[in-house]
């Protein structure tokens, strides 16, 4: 008789293994968050958040870098969200699968694969130099939007595709035009997916360093307009740590970075759950 492992035992072994793997993943996250927090949390006071950096970042807070980050996110999203959702709507609703859609999809995939430092270099050569925009929030935001486009197109496309075709048929059978169908039924239904994609791209904006360093510069002053240079939190952290200016302040910045990303992800999950609760999943 062939030796077979008792299914009950293999079930138990697998369960323990899988649990272990999951636990390990969580543990890594937990370790990183703790490591950074322990070193960073003592730095964080109201002053740290509300005063501008002084003496190259050795003293003072990180207010201007928070604002630069927010401005940059704003510009990047203002460009990438309409473009990305528009492209996704075109690809899913307004065209049939063809060679052209294949090329467009292939293009966005390639765009997603470009290393961010190359994108940064492109942004520097094109926006900063060729268009004479200089190191500015605007150059940084535009370059960043190129980086976000593939994610937003992909996630929007997937969630638009997940909207049951029958809903569209119903709309058309009610004499509703295609555009009305898209705006009144398809997009609202696909919204949780789209929002999740956008929120994840905010996370990427916050964490991105290479692109911003090349295009938005590293000025520590609070940007007065979108044409001013600004230093985001991630760049600030990089410079503080890299040049050994102030490790405590670097960890303080890192803590704010990590917690804002965690907070944003939690918001995304919360929004999505609220939405799914309201509109039960389709059969």
């Amino acid at each position, binding site marked *: 008789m062939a030796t077979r492992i008792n299914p009950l035992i293999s079930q138990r072994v697998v369960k323990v293994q899988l649990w272990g793997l999951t636990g390990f993943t969580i543990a890594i996250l937990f370790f990183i968050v703790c490591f950074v927090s322990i070193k960073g949390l003592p730095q964080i006071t109201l002053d740290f958040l509300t005063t501008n950096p002084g003496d190259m970042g050795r003293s003072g807070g990180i207010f201007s870098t928070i604002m630069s980050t927010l401005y940059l996110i704003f510009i990047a999203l203002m460009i990438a969200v309409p473009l990305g959702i528009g492209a996704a709507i075109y690809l899913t609703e307004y065209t049939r699968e063809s060679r052209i859609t294949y090329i467009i999809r292939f293009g966005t995939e390639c765009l997603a694969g470009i290393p961010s430092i190359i994108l940064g270099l492109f942004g520097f050569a094109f926006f900063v130099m060729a268009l004479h925009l200089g190191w500015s929030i605007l150059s940084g935001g535009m370059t960043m939007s190129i980086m976000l486009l593939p994610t937003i197109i992909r996630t929007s496309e997937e969630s638009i595709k997940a909207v049951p075709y029958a809903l569209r*048929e*119903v709309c058309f*059978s*009610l004499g509703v035009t295609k555009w009305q169908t898209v705006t*009144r039924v398809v997009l609202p239904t696909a919204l949780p997916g789209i929002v999740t994609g956008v929120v994840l791209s905010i996370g990427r904006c916050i964490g991105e360093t290479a692109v911003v360093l090349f295009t938005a510069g590293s000025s520590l002053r609070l940007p007065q307009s979108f044409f001013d240079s600004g230093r985001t939190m991630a760049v600030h952290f990089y410079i503080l740590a890299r040049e050994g200016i102030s490790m405590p302040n670097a960890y303080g910045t890192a803590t704010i970075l990590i917690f804002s990303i965690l907070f944003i992800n939690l918001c995304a999950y919360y929004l999505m759950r609220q939405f799914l609760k309201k509109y039960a999943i389709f059969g």
Partner: protein
Amino acid sequence: MSAKVIVKDLNFSYNHQRVLSSINLTVEANSILGIMGPAKSGKTTLLRVFNRLCDLIPNIHIEGEVFLDEENILRPDIDVDKLRKRVGMVFDKPVPLPRSIFENLAFGPKLHGIKDKNRLEELVEKSLRLAILWDEVKDRLHESALKLSGGQQQRLCIARTLAMESEVILLDEPTYGLDPVSTLKIEEALQSLKRNYTIVLVSNNTWQVARTSDNVAFLLMGELVEYGSTHGVFTVPKDKRTDDYISGRFG
């Protein structure tokens, strides 16, 4: 009785395959035309020609004419959105929009320009009463339509079509997968509806066609085998294939 829809020499092919060939039939105003036939006989395709929903399918070719009140609806320059408002449709699976019951019904009328709230409320109530759903949902009009049972959802879909104040209602196996009580309610609703509407009912259920329709069309492999009054077709079918089909000796 006057004719509401007249189909003349209709040919329909999909990917160079014939789905309907030389269909000629008339739908009388204020009557129920039952279309029966086995699967893949072209029933649904024929139904979708009546509101041009077939336009959504790629690679189709249509020949012939379909008149709705003397207007050829197959003309390429016809406003299909306007046509679909006049010719409503109910699908085999109930598909409520992910909105409240009220919003489901008000959706079409609102987008067709009815803004007045009282008028909308009136329309919603009237349509729900016609679809025999009002008493079950009148206290929860603003709850999600997805919470209704399958039979209620299908009546909601019928009511949604009625709220458009269409002239013709197409039903594609509206009682598919519903229990006998829900089926009965829908059939009852159809009987009272035909006073004001012209109804085309596609059904796999021969007895439903016999029970509800005034005229019957029997489709087989895209061919109209028999067309006549329900009484005539079910008592003395002219074609042997119809006889075989309705007595269950088919195939």
